[in-house]
């Protein structure tokens, strides 16, 4: 029988609760409170009225909604055919499509934005060619649509991955029974296949919506400020942390995030259609007819070219001496890397320290919560899980502003330094924001450790602490490492909190460096070089975490476990 109560367990639980309350709940509540409080501390809607009375704010609101919805739509158009191709047809492109699902995610959208400007902008490579040959140009990167373009290329994999999994889990008998009863073709797709895959689509689409709606880095790099997140940032940094409009924007961001998550959650409830039966088969894969193959490979090729363009653009940019009004750079150099390693080695170092510490905190708390939830019967233990998961719905802008406001007068004991002006704030902000990733990874890992393995250790005389140290943690190692790496790499490319919390350049991490460099034409080269370094880091980290998870699965298969 798992323990219901013991002092060490309660102590750990309270410690984690205190951490989450202090660095997640209080900052978020502070933001909400400021948005609704009048100067005397009473409740007021005046700030909201103020928000909606400003035409810039109304415009920003509409723009943010437009960009998020348009990105969902564009991502759908890109991802749905790709997902359908992989599960429906037998062909060699499937592996390419799987790669497509990962490639965009290893480069943050704001890093690719500058490169895409050079490739697809008004005087970018594509339009120079089009103008030269055909005498017209495509306004791909103009204004809001430029953001939609950049975000779509970055976020469509969320829909692709979720939808592919859902489609793959449809048992072929689901389709055959419909055919047996008289359905086929489009009606079969509309009435059976599509509804069964819908949960996967909704999960992916709501994620895309939230991510884009909350994004700060991409609009700023593309110089678009009439959207919600940039406005919140500008209000707080230019007018000051006392200005309530910034907080009103934060509440709107949170409300949409929570609504999108709750909405998709409500939709998914009771619809987890894992319909693949034991011993069942996925949908039959057909061979592509020649004309279908041409279409399929054409589409895949086009998407692949688009997906690779930011990577390629950043790489070219990082080696180019001059790249302006030309299809390709006109002169090459290694100077940007020298600049980066000379001037910005401090930023690279900062990233490793902040993200390393944050990831360490995340896996420690993640493992502890997993243990408390899965292995004890401590009352209220689920609350810790729920609390930590709340961070998933919290936009970086909101947490950043919440930290600035909540801790503005807090000093780190014994040092006399303000918390908001120290490097510690990055560690705290990153760890809270990326905790859900590490937590899920640790939970999954612990769920796979059968309790009988622990009971065997205790039967042979190991104490609870000894069991955790010698049996549980070693068996969870793969999952913990995967969690660490995921936390680390996602924190390394975090930009919203980073922009808000960077008070001095000497404290800035790499992601801020990229953002800063990209602001000026002259800085693009070094910015791209720094971008390349971060992409390599993220790619390597992604590879590592896949390896950890894969080896863990292999391990379980070897032991005859599913």
């Amino acid at each position, binding site marked *: 029988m798992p323990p219901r109560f013991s002092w060490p367990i309660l102590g750990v639980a309270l410690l984690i609760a205190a951490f989450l309350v202090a660095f997640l709940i209080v900052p978020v509540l502070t933001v909400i409170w400021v948005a609704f409080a009048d100067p005397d501390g009473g409740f007021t809607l005046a700030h909201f009225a103020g928000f909606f009375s400003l035409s810039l704010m109304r415009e920003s609101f509409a723009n943010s909604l437009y960009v998020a919805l348009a990105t969902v739509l564009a991502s759908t158009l890109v991802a749905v055919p790709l997902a359908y191709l992989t599960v429906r047809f037998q062909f060699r492109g499937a592996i390419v499509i799987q790669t497509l699902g990962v490639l965009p995610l290893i480069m943050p959208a704001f890093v690719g934005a500058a490169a895409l400007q050079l490739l697809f902008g008004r005087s970018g490579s594509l339009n120079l060619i089009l103008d030269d040959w055909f005498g017209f140009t495509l306004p791909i990167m103009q204004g809001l649509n430029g953001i939609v373009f950049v975000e779509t290329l970055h976020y469509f994999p969320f829909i692709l991955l979720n939808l592919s999994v859902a489609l793959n889990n449809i048992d072929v008998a689901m389709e055959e029974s419909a055919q047996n009863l*008289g359905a086929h073709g489009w009606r079969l797709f509309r009435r059976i296949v599509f509804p069964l895959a819908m949960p996967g689509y909704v999960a992916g689409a709501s994620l895309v919506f939230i991510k884009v709606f909350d994004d700060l880095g991409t609009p700023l790099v593309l110089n678009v400020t009439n959207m919600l997140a940039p406005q919140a940032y500008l209000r707080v940094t230019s007018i000051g942390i006392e200005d309530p409009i910034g907080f009103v924007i934060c509440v709107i961001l949170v409300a949409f995030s929570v609504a999108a998550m709750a909405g998709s959650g409500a939709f998914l409830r009771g619809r987890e259609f894992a319909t693949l039966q034991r011993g069942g088969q996925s949908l039959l894969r057909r061979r592509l007819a020649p004309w279908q193959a041409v279409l399929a490979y054409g589409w895949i090729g086009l998407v692949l070219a688009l997906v690779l363009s930011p990577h390629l653009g950043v790489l070219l940019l990082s080696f180019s001496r001059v790249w302006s009004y030309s299809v390709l750079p006109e002169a090459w150099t290694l100077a940007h890397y020298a600049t980066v390693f000379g001037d910005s080695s401090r930023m690279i170092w900062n990233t490793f320290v902040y993200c390393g510490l944050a990831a360490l905190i995340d896996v420690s708390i993640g493992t502890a919560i997993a243990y408390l939830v899965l292995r004890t019967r401590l009352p209220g233990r689920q609350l810790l899980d729920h609390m930590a998961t709340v961070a998933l719905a919290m936009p970086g802008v909101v947490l950043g502003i919440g930290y600035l406001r909540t801790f503005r007068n807090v000093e780190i004991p014994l040092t006399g330094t303000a918390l908001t002006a120290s490097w510690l704030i990055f560690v705290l902000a990153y760890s809270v924001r990326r905790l859900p990733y590490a937590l899920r990874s640790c939970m999954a890992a612990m769920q796979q450790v059968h309790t009988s393995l622990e009971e065997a250790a205790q039967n042979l005389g190991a104490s609870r602490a000894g069991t955790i140290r010698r049996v549980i943690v070693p068996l969870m190692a793969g999952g913990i490492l995967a969690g660490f790496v995921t936390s680390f790499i996602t924190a390394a490319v975090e930009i919203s909190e980073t922009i808000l919390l960077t008070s001095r350049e000497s404290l800035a991490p790499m992601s801020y460096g990229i953002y800063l460099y990209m602001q000026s034409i002259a800085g693009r080269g070094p910015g791209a070089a720094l971008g390349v370094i971060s992409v390599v880091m993220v790619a390597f980290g992604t590879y590592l975490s896949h390896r950890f998870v894969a080896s863990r699965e292999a391990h379980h298969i070897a032991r005859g476990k599913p």
Partner: protein
Amino acid sequence: MTAPVRVEARQVSLAFGANVVLRDIDVVVEPGEFFALLGPSGCGKSTLLRLIAGFNRAQKGAILIDGEDITQLVPWKRNVGMVFQSYALWPHMTVAQNVAFGLEERRQPRAAVRAKVEDVLALVGLGEYATRRPGQLSGGQQQRVALARTLAIEPRVLLLDEPLSNLDAKLRHHMRRELLAMQRKLGITTIFVTHDQEEAMTTADRIAVMHQGVIQQVGTPIDLYDRPVNRFVAEFVGTINLVPGRTVAGAIDSALGRIARPPDQPLSDGPVQLAFRPHTVALSSAPAPEPGAPGAHHWVDGSVLEREFLGEFVRYRVSAGALELIVDQQHTLGDAGYAPGTRISVGVDPGQLRVLHG
């Protein structure tokens, strides 16, 4: 219900690459018959069923319903109802929506659909479950829904793929009787696939035993049990003893000695197998009579190797000369039976022998 139809497979062959799944299948299912395809997994029985439903295409041969060739017909135009092994109920629809699906695909008017759904749900006893989702039902209820969904379209033929394999033993026996009663009531030509010989024997009018893509024998349950045509059928349907022998001038020589040729069985010279069921063998503690002594049985000396108590009867493994035989003896109150190691006489009744070639 329209008049029951006759289903026929003519010279059907099918291979997946080099793997031959069906070889020259010829079988006729009579109108209104409850017909079983029986065989071990991988024998091709499910493939044959799917061929009738249109989910597989034969390389050779034809499928006919009432003489009409449907070989090239797409699945959705066949009106051949199939109940899937996994039931394949759609989780995003309610029970009623599942059942209505086929009728809607047939563009039937709303009122007619509603009435029919109510009818078939009542028929399977699930009237009050119409608004539930499949996930909220037990395995047995799910199967009834799958059946109702198929019956709703009034199919010409009902195909059941391992219909009872996902149910626990008790429910399986119950559903078996229920399925049979339903089929008798509707009179619909029904073909069902199973690997369970008991299930086939207790429900089917006739059975086709399949092995390695070939139909070994078609017959009533009693036919198959009493007159298996080959070793595979003999061993697959029930338990049987096989003793190798040779035919010699109207008699058969084997380890059991020389036995007169059974009267009703055609014999050619050469190696044969003597086949007989365990419960037709007699055991006696008296010494075996001399060969040729009068009496129905043919006795040999033996001893008990093992015994299993199964309630209604005791199953012995006995040695008789160089042979090992399985012998079932009815158990009655106070009967202690024979302990392992006991020397006994084993009596084989020539009237219960089947002679199998090859």
